Each structure stands twice: as C-alpha cells, then as structure tokens.
C-alpha cells in the first residue's frame, strides 16, 4: 500500500493525479486525516521548501507542488466533512498602501499556506487601517507586509505605527519583505523580522510562532 513517503514524494514531484490517488487510498484504509496532511502533504512541501532554498528546485516547480498539495487537501476536506484543518498559525499578508505589486507577495502567501499556516491574503494597496481591521478580525499570529517600491516602503512604518496606536503591535509579530527591503530597514521601523525570499519567510514564520524573539533570516 502506498504510504506517507509516496504522498510526500508525489507532492515533491508536483504530480497532482498521484497526490489525489494516494490521499484517497490512505483515507480509505483508515489512516488519520491529520497524519495524511502532516506526514504526507506538508512533509512533501517542507522538502520542496528546502530544495527551493538551495536552488535545486525553482518557482514553477514549487507552484506545481503547491497545486498538487492543495488537491490533496481538497480530497481530505471532501471526505471528512467535519474535519478541522490543522494550522501552524494565522498570517495576515498584504502589499502596503500605494504599492500594486503582488507576484512576490502571492508566492510568499502560497509557500506559507503550503507549510500549514492559515493565510489571509488581503491583496495590494492595503491601507494601514485595513491591516489594523484585519488583525482585529482574524487575530493572526503574524502580519506580513510587502513593498516593491522605495516610495511605498515607508508605508510599512505607518502600518506598524497604526498597529501600535490600536494597541495591537504587541499581540502580533510583524514581518516585512520585498525587493528594496533590508534587515537594516526592518530594524529601523521596528518590524520583528525580515526575509529575503518566500522559503525564508515561511521559516521565519515558523520560528516566530515557536515564540523566539526577533529572529532574522540571513540572505
């Protein structure tokens, strides 16, 4: 019988049909759906993350893997009506006010989601007040902000200030990223972390929800 290793391998290979097949067969044989997700699907995506970071896998392959994994998650959800998806934590993510770039931000959101985070992707051009609202509504562990423009990166600081004013800054960890962003800048505006790419951002989130303070990820 196909096992967790097959499932994780199918995710790694981005083989959607195989992921669906193995997920079904595991569930049919009575395996705990939580194990199917954690030991099969997410383990596969974790391996993808490592290879991606080492430049052994590339963006299109990561997207294929994520798509395959999602297909597996859908099978689990279909078969288990009352099933509660496990979550490593909640992340609110968005591109800051004035900035309309979403390719990198969406990549980060996708990687986080595939690693087991619940992600609320607010979109682009997000006002500080909207971030505040989202934090009140979703009560996330992490707020992730993106900016591609040097003219909009200061709006990250505004957003952090808005969170402070609303008394929410201590309730969440704020991480930032985007082409012009540096660790230096993150420190300057009082962000809790910076990550240079999607795989590092996911790792950073994992470290932050484990409760370690102010962990930067080296470029």
């Amino acid at each position, binding site marked *: 019988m196909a096992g967790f290793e097959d499932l994780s391998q199918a995710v790694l290979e981005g083989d959607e049909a195989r992921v669906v097949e193995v997920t079904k067969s595991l569930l049919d044989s009575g395996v705990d759906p939580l194990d199917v997700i954690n030991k099969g699907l997410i383990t596969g995506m974790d391996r993808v993350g490592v290879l991606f970071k080492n*430049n052994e896998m*590339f*963006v*299109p392959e990561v*997207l294929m893997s994520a798509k395959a994994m999602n297909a597996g998650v859908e099978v689990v959800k279909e078969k288990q009506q009352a099933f509660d998806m496990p979550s490593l934590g909640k992340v609110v993510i968005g591109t800051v006010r004035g900035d*309309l*770039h*979403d*390719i990198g931000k*969406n*990549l980060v959101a996708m990687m986080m989601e595939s690693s087991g985070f619940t992600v609320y992707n607010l979109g*682009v*051009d997000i006002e500080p007040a909207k971030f505040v609202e989202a934090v009140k509504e979703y009560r996330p562990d992490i707020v992730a902000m993106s900016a591609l*423009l*040097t*003219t909009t*990166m*200061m709006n990250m600081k505004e957003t952090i200030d808005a969170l402070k004013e609303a008394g929410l800054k201590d309730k969440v960890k704020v991480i930032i990223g985007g*082409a*012009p962003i540096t660790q230096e800048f993150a420190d300057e505006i009082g962000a809790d972390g910076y990550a240079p790419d999607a795989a590092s951002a996911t790792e950073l989130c994992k470290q932050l929800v484990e409760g370690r303070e102010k962990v930067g990820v080296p470029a």
Partner: protein
Amino acid sequence: MLIVGELINTSRKPIKEAIERGDAAYIRDIAVRQAEAGADYIDVNCGTLIHNEPETMAWLANIVREAVNVPLCIDSPNPEALEAGLKLATKGRPMLNSITAEPDRFEAVLPIVKNFKAKVVALCMDEEGIPSTAEKRIEIVRKLVEDLTAAGIEREDIYIDPLVKPISTSDQAGAELIAAVGFIRENFPGVHIICGLSNVSFGLPNRRVLNQAFMVQLMTVGMDSYILDPLDREMMGFFYASKALLGKDPFCTDYLKAHRRGLYRRD
C-alpha cells in the same frame, strides 16, 4: 534602437557602497565604461536611498554628466528626485523614467517632463496595478499615448514600457508580452517601446540565457529600446547581431564595429 545603461542603481551593492564613501571616481568609471560599451543613455537610479534621494540624485547626475557625452536617464518615481537630476542633465535631451497612468503620478510628473523637454518612459500600469489581461494593457497604452500627446509630448519622445513579468509564476507571461509589443508596434506608430529584461527570468536558473533570448524575441516584434547592462558582452553581442539580422543596421555597420571592438572574441 536605443540602449539605456542600467548599472548606476543603488539597489546594486557596489554603487550603494561607492555613494556611502563618496567615491566619485567609481561612479565616473562605471559611467564611462557603459558609454564606451554602447549605451546611448546612462540611467541614474538611487531610489533605495529613501532619506536623501534628491541630494544623491544631484550628486550622481553631476558626476555622470561631467564624465560622459551621452545624455542621462533620470530614474525615480519621486518627482523631487526627478527634478533634482534633470536640472543637471544638461548634455543632449534627457530621459525621464518614469510616468504611469496612475492619475496622481501622471499629474505630478507631466509638468516635469514638459519643463525639461525630456523623453519619457511610460510604464504600462494604472491605479489598479499592472494589467493582467491583454485588453487592459492596450487600454492603458492608449490612455498614456493619448494623454501624453494631448499634453504636447511628441510620439517620438514616448517610450512605452509594457512591463515584463516572470514566466516562472505565469508561464504565458513571455508570450503575452511578445503579443503586446507586436500590437503596440502596429497600432501606435511612432512611439518607442522599451523594457528591462531581467524580470522575465525571476525564479529560474540560467537567467542570462532567458534574458538574452527574450531580448531577441522582443526586438523581432518591435521592441526598439532596452534598459540593460551594456558591459554584458554576450547580451550586447546578441543585440547587435539581432539588429543586423532584422535589417535595422544599414551595411551591418554597428555589427562590424562591435566585431572590431572585440565583442565577439572568445577569450
């Protein structure tokens, strides 16, 4: 055919460091080498220096203007920095990079374009961002060309940048851009089409090969200006070869010049 040399950009570490230590000689050298390698414009971008962009822009523009005889391309979304640079871009007609169809930015940048009689790079984006459909892209290009010409800017001075997106996140992005460039070339005669190339290869290995292939493909459908690294000999080699093959190099003059400069020598 026009090349804008992209190397004086503070997002590149050596430039950032040269500015930090006030090393005018380094900036001068990069400007001279780009001009010698065939750049028609020298781009100056210090957008990462959010705290003193206009001052740094003026410092850089002054160095470059004294070092080379080619004109400057002042590159910033910030009107203040654009003005600071353009004031010093006194050799030939300067280029301004960039204006967009976002109403606020259009309003703020247009007077600067006119005031300095600059050629202008117009990014194909509006308040909703970078278009995701071909129709929307055409709509923005039409608006940009109409609004700019209505304001008295000649079509020949407009450089439309259709904005290159990565094929790693959307595998049709390259094909779509090639189609868009063909469409612009056909429907908006007189305007120039410009782009930077490196975005196309984001997230993939061997980026240089993709960038080079894309440069040739885009030129084939009507791209006539590039923002690139003129010190990249392979890229420049393909640029001159492609130009000659497309009948845009009378008597193959530039191709032969490049040959004599040693551009195709294997060492």
